[in-house]
């Protein structure tokens, strides 16, 4: 690891070394932050460079904070220009996002943490209610009105060719264990769940949530593709297929 930071100046910088500034500003995802922390603990040269980066970080913030802000006339000028514009409706997206941002900005971190916990609890309750409803509505094997289990064997044989292509399918809808990025917002998580038709089955053990996708079974290839797509999502740190 010492070599990792030694080589930095003569050769190409290492992957971890390149991430140090983002670690200082706290914008790495959980996985990269952990990798950097481990490397810093092992490599004193890298830790020394990180201390230098912290100085740069502080100096940059200090420099920018010292620049002041625009005079009030800039705002007057802007709103005069807007008044001169033809009337238009503001973007629904922008309005919603601003409102959400305002809501979170006025809450303390502790309140936000409680709100997040309650939101997760609400999602789990919702998942539970849905699961119970689905279970109640699912007919049991022996309640079928049109097909008795005592039907002649030929009936089963007749269905067999149709059933064959589905042999590679998983018995239940695909599931995955997912860890969301630490900076993932509740609105993003909800949007992701909607877009994947996913529900949270349980969590968050070790920060991982067990998700179920849709209500139909998939082939193992489809399930693997779905998990791979999920792993590429910006707010997902880790996604692995789960039973």
């Amino acid at each position, binding site marked *: 690891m010492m070599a990792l930071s030694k080589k930095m100046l003569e050769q190409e910088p290492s992957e971890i070394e390149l991430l140090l*500034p983002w670690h200082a500003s706290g914008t790495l995802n959980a996985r990269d932050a952990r990798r950097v922390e481990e490397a810093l603990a092992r490599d004193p040269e890298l830790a020394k460079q990180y201390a230098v980066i912290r100085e740069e970080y502080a100096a940059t913030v200090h*420099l920018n904070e010292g620049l002041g802000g625009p005079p009030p006339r800039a705002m007057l000028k802007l709103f005069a220009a807007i008044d001169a514009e033809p009337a238009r409706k503001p973007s629904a997206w922008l309005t919603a996002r601003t409102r959400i941002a305002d809501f979170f900005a006025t809450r303390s971190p502790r309140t936000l943490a409680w709100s997040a916990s309650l939101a997760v609890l609400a999602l789990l309750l919702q998942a539970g209610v849905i699961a119970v409803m689905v279970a109640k509505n699912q007919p049991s094997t022996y309640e079928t009105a049109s097909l008795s289990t005592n039907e002649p064997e030929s009936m089963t044989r007749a269905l067999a060719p149709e059933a064959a292509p589905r042999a590679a399918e998983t018995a239940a809808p695909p599931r995955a264990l997912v860890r969301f990025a630490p900076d993932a917002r509740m609105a993003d998580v909800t949007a992701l769940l909607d877009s994947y038709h996913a529900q949270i089955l349980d969590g968050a053990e070790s920060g991982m949530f067990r998700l179920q996708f849709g209500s139909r079974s998939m082939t193992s290839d489809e399930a693997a593709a779905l998990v791979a797509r999920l792993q590429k999502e910006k707010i997902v740190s880790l996604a692995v297929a789960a039973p």
Partner: protein
Amino acid sequence: MQVLYGRHHVRVFRFGLRLVRDEQVAEDLISEVFLDVWRQAGKFEGRSAVSTWLLAITRFKALSVLRRRKDSELEDEAANAIEDTADDPEVATQKKDTSEALRKCLTGLSREHREIVDLVYYHEKSVEEVAEIVGIPENTVKTRLFYARKKLAELLKAAGVERGWP
């Protein structure tokens, strides 16, 4: 719009000012940016944070302003900036004030280096967000910041400040 302006105008102004280095131009810039936001609000798709979107517009407008200036003006400005930086840190070093020297040298970086340093350290943008704002690949974002930091170290060294890296 007032809420949006109230929340973001200072950072947008500072980012613009660091790029164009002229308060009056930065002041005009901020009006142009928010007027554009007003006009294009319908095009915002919410794929990125509002601040990322605003900084990308600010950068685009700042570069347009810089392009409008004559090449000679730009060269003079760059030369002055470097000259200032070389002098001031020496004074700061005499006062044993490394932080002051650091700040002076930060102003002496090239426009490309200044913007990436500010976006990461001050505006706290992730690799992906910087890539979106600057319009370069994520790997280039990482290496560009690395070389900006090396340049900063060179400026400090020239001013007699040794920090143990590189």
